[in-house]
């Protein structure tokens, strides 16, 4: 599909437009948020703790008296980075493994796919917990853990599109004309296998943010005092009655960002790859 057409189709797709709008706003906030923040997100003011939302603190303060609005603004950057890096970590090896597996088949395929099956035998969150336990809890390690967990998903998707592409005539023709494996894979198969990967990666960013938040809930994610939304939300669960705003705002922020990724991903799928319907 010509690129221009994709763009114009995306523009006409309502869910893609709304999703893109949300992502753009979040991105903007990530870029200029720190300038908008009225307070330092890291400096506690324990005597002002758990203040409700109001004109002084728009979103109220947390249990250490920090301004939640400022923390949510700063946290935007972290959440976006979590989404991007985690997906990048699953994407690169996942794509490579899927390409190799699908293209060469045989024992390479068996080996890679059995390995992926082994990873898939773990429930996702459990594998993530496992990996963070090994690496130690920290934000980068959270991203690595979430990234590794989803490698098999990408490998499978790429493998299946490679399998169908491989059978298509043009690839076989190139192979007969004496293209090297690397060239065929890189220049011919990969570009054609991209649409489902792009769609899955977009949706995957939302999943990654949620998974990271779940790890934060278990105390394995971002380290204090970093204003990561999942960790803030998880801190707020203690104050559900006393100060519901502590959890409400970071929770809403997560919901919004993930919603943005999901909407955009849905739209992309409709435009790029209508056959990829299962989420």
């Amino acid at each position, binding site marked *: 599909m010509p690129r221009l057409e994709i763009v114009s189709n995306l523009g006409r797709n309502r869910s893609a437009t709304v999703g893109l709008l949300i992502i753009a706003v979040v991105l903007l906030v990530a870029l200029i948020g720190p300038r908008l923040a009225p307070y330092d997100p890291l400096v506690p003011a324990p005597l002002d703790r758990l203040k409700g939302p109001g004109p002084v603190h728009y979103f109220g303060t947390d249990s250490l008296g920090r301004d939640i609005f400022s923390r949510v603004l700063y946290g935007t950057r972290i959440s976006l980075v979590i989404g991007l890096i985690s997906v990048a970590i699953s994407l690169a090896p996942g794509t490579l493994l899927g390409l190799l597996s699908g293209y060469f088949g045989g024992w390479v395929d068996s080996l890679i796919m059995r390995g992926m099956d082994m990873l898939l035998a773990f429930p996702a969150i459990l594998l993530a917990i496992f990996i963070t336990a090994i690496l130690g809890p920290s934000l980068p390690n959270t991203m690595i853990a979430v990234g590794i967990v989803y490698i098999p998903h990408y490998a499978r998707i790429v493998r299946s599109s490679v399998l169908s592409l491989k059978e298509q005539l043009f690839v076989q023709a190139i192979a007969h004309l004496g293209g090297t494996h690397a060239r065929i894979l890189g220049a011919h198969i990969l570009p054609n296998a991209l649409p489902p990967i792009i769609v899955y990666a977009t949706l995957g960013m939302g999943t990654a943010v949620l998974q990271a938040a779940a790890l934060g809930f278990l105390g394995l994610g971002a380290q204090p005092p970093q204003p990561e939304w999942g960790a803030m939300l998880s801190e707020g669960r203690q104050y559900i*009655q006393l100060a519901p705003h502590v959890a409400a705002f970071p929770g809403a922020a997560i919901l919004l960002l993930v919603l943005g990724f*999901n909407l955009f991903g849905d739209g992309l799928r409709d435009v790029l790859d209508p056959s990829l319907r299962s989420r």
Partner: protein
Amino acid sequence: MPLSYISRRLFHLLLILLGVSVLVFLMLRMIPGDPAQLLLGEYARPEELARLRTQLGLDRSYPIQYGIYLQSILRGDFGTSVRTGAPVVDEIGVRLLATIELSLAAMFIATLLGIVAGVISAVKQYSVFDYGSMFLALIGVSMPIFWLGLMLIYLLAVKFPILPMMGRISMGLEAPAVTGLVVVDTLIAGQLGACGDALRHLLLPACTLATIPMAIVARITRSSMLEVLNQDYVRTARAKGLGEAVVILRHALRNAFLPVVTVLGLNLGLLLGGAVLTETIFSWPGLGRYVVDSLMGRDYAAVQGCILIFAVLMALINLIVDLLYVLLDPRIRVHA
């Protein structure tokens, strides 16, 4: 289904289980911090640590530890929990049933509501219901589920105490365990009141756990139905004079099932994972919580046992999904 196919699947499963057992074994040992230290906590003395390590066999080399482990597994012994001293099999059994009860309930809710919402949305495409339910579905997959669980508890168990907030059944209503599924056990015992009580206990955690799969099922059902409703055979069914309900349920839905079943299978796996958080929030005595506690407590045998159980469950689910395919679609034949 040919026997050779099943036996090949079983062989596959064995291979994966072997791989998983090595993987888990190694990963567990890669985690810093040793079980003895955790057992003794902050009050441990070095000599006590050393003694406990010897007693637990932790001073032996990894290959020997693994060999011992593998041997005992082949004997059907999954080892003893470091923390409780009880056989891991016993520890897992009860909790597994609790998790299965919760997951099945969640699956039931997700499937039922998801399919109903998906079908109505597809039939009434672009209606208020369609937009509403699809928006809700999107929210559902975008929401941190532990947050949802806490809000549900706060709203429906504390603020407006309609439903119990924790546990599997009210105190004193327990029925003798036959299946280990409380709802079924109370039914078997003929205690309808107790069964109702157990169902009420199940409702909040199951709904929480069901949120994501329900949303996914609704979305996939809708898109699959939309595709099927445009098929010629649906028009044929209408041209035969069949009622709209028969057309949709018998002719369209049946064909739309295939992708739904795939997604359901994938989701059962998701549910097992989601149970980790849900069980914590709702104090549900299940395997998800147990495996995390065991991991945090470096209860090697317990974690190894749990993961193997998970792997077997996943394989079983996949097998059932494949069988369902064959049942649902006569065009699919298994190639052995």
